[in-house]
């Protein structure tokens, strides 16, 4: 059994660790490239949202590399992600690939569906070894995020942006190669110390909150690396979603670390009063939170036609008005053109900067 899975940011490093701990052979899809997009777009339904197209491209490339089992997440709506696995299986089967698909989701009626799926994944190991594997994967994820958070802090502040990016990328590779928890943590700490030694600019960067749909937020290939684009414009980005937080909220029901989801739902209240699937409610909640945490602006991102994000987008203007914060929504689809994106980001950053200067002067006069 050679297992593959879709890409989402740095998730492949953690999953690889987890699967290796379960003594399974893994064939991660090659990094998302132009070819991945092309394969995905060619074979997906035209109006499907972009994550499905990238997933499909990942799967095709992995199957070409010899994978024979696909592990995919599922769900029960209302977001269409819950039906991804079914559509993807139909498409891949029609393309003539031979594979087995394991969909991890809470079962509809028969609980043994899920236990069977999990058993087939963990048949080589004891329960104790499985727990160890999960812990190992989790520790890598934590180490990666530790570096990422520092990277987000230093990128807008340092002079040498290339250097800090290089440190971050190298740390990711080292953590991927780490054989145990201590090695992963050491690699993370080493990178962070190195970042601390860099020369800093003498200014307070703009602070922009990045909210939206989880895949677009976490996968740099899906958002043209918007975090780095902004960082290079001396804008500090507060990411609303980190993978560990999301897993903690949704899979582990908040018992691994403290969750602020309840608070999020509470602040979203006057604007959006009901769960709308996907990350709609979280987007609205984060927008309000960032506004109250005195960020300079907010950017919402999502894949084009994403239903929950459209609900959030419709509501964000009223938040922008009442909480007094500039907001912008960016949709991503398979059309690649970073120049347009860059211009819009620059314009937004300039606008936010001027407004900040204006309010500061106004406060000085008063």
């Amino acid at each position, binding site marked *: 059994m050679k297992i593959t899975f879709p890409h989402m940011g740095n998730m492949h490093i953690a999953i690889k660790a987890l699967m290796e701990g379960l003594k399974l052979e893994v064939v991660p899809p090659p990094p998302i490239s132009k070819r991945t997009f092309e394969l995905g777009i060619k074979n997906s*339904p035209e*109006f499907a949202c972009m994550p499905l197209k990238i997933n499909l491209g990942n799967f095709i490339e992995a199957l070409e590399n010899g994978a024979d089992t696909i592990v995919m997440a599922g769900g029960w709506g209302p977001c269409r992600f819950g039906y991804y696995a079914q*559509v993807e299986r139909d498409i891949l089967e029609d393309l003539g690939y031979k594979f087995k698909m394991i969909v991890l989701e809470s079962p509809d009626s028969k609980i043994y569906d899920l236990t069977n799926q999990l058993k087939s994944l963990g048949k080589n190991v004891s329960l104790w070894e499985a727990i160890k594997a999960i812990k190992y994967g989790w520790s890598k994820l934590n180490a990666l995020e530790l570096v990422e958070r520092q990277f987000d802090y230093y990128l807008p502040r340092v002079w040498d942006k290339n250097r800090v990016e290089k440190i971050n990328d190298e740390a990711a590779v080292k953590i991927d190669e780490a054989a145990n928890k201590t090695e992963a943590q050491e690699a993370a700490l080493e990178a962070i110390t190195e970042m601390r030694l860099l020369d800093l600019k003498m200014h307070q960067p703009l602070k922009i909150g990045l909210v939206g749909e989880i895949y677009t937020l976490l996968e740099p290939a899906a958002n043209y690396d918007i975090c780095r684009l902004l960082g290079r414009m001396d804008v500090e980005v507060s990411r609303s979603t980190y993978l560990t937080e999301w897993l903690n909220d949704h899979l582990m029901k908040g018992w691994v670390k403290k969750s602020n989801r309840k608070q999020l739902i509470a602040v979203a209240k006057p604007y959006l009063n009901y769960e*709308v699937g996907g990350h709609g409610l979280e987007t609205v909640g984060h927008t309000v939170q960032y506004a109250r945490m005195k960020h300079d602006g907010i950017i919402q991102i999502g894949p084009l036609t994403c*239903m929950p994000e459209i*609900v959030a987008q419709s*509501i964000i203007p009223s938040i922008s008005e009442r909480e007094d914060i500039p907001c912008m929504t960016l949709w991503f689809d398979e059309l690649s053109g970073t120049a347009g994106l860059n211009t819009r980001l620059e314009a937004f950053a300039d606008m936010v900067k001027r407004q900040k200067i204006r309010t500061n002067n106004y406060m000085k006069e008063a």
Partner: protein
Amino acid sequence: MRVGIPRSLFYYYYYPLWKTFFQDLGAEVVTSDWTNRLTVEKGIESAVDEACFPIKVYYGHVRELCSKSIDYMFIPRLVSVESRSYICPKFMGLPDMIKAALHDLPSVIDITIDVSKTNKFLNRDIISVGNIFTNNKNRIKEAYHHGQYELRKCKELCRDGYNISEAIRIWDGEQLVAHSTYNLNIGVLGHGYSLYDQTISMNLIDRLRKMGCRVQVVETLDRNSIEAKAAEIPKRIFWTLGRKAFGSALFMEGQKEIDGIIYLACFGCGPDSMIGEIIERKIKSKPFMMITVDEHTGEAGMVTRLEAFCDMLTRRKVAANEDYISTHG
């Protein structure tokens, strides 16, 4: 007291229930006009660009009602109308979306209808809506039951070959002539609120009828056989309308008298992008056409496609007696 009901979205499924309910409680029910150019223009102005066409049209209807001096606007939050299924995320946020975009709204009645897990809260919410008009709990319950009775009566009309929108019009007192002669039999699928709205669907059903087709829709088919067909897929479809469309498509494929199937989708519709794909991959023995519409009004393009489809079906019918013609390439 005047209650406004936008003539859009789930008007096309539940109007008899809502109207009876509010009328029995002593309110006057006001609806907006049928969707027209003005509704569409107003809607596009108010809604975000990325929203799907029916949602934009809904904004237009709400704006029209705002100018009709009503006391309450009825914008239900339809999360789920049956167990373990949803409608669409946009319906779940609809009252909030409308409130965020339009400022001169009358008081909004935004009852949450969510029976996906339990319908315990539904009764409580219905009473709380009824309390706006009366304190008599029994009267509210009676009004609701009367509404459900009227809705059932309306749905029975569908067995005579009317679609639900026509059934509602007949129920509301209109006279409609049933079409009797036809030479083609076409199954038409899609979300009711786009299919039966004559502006959104560009009059698709009537156009087909004028071309001499008998149109079969979800409501004219047997409900149980649709559900049985929909259950054939490995994973239950969790969108109510999507599941029905899928079940109907498979059912129609098995019916000998149906010549072809048309699926009307709206641009940007999430469920349709998946359901359309699954149907297209499953249906191999009947001609299938997917039409996507949005707010751009190019009727000619659609007419051409419909004509071509019907011509193809007619030829296929003639040729079928002589030789087999593949449905796809």
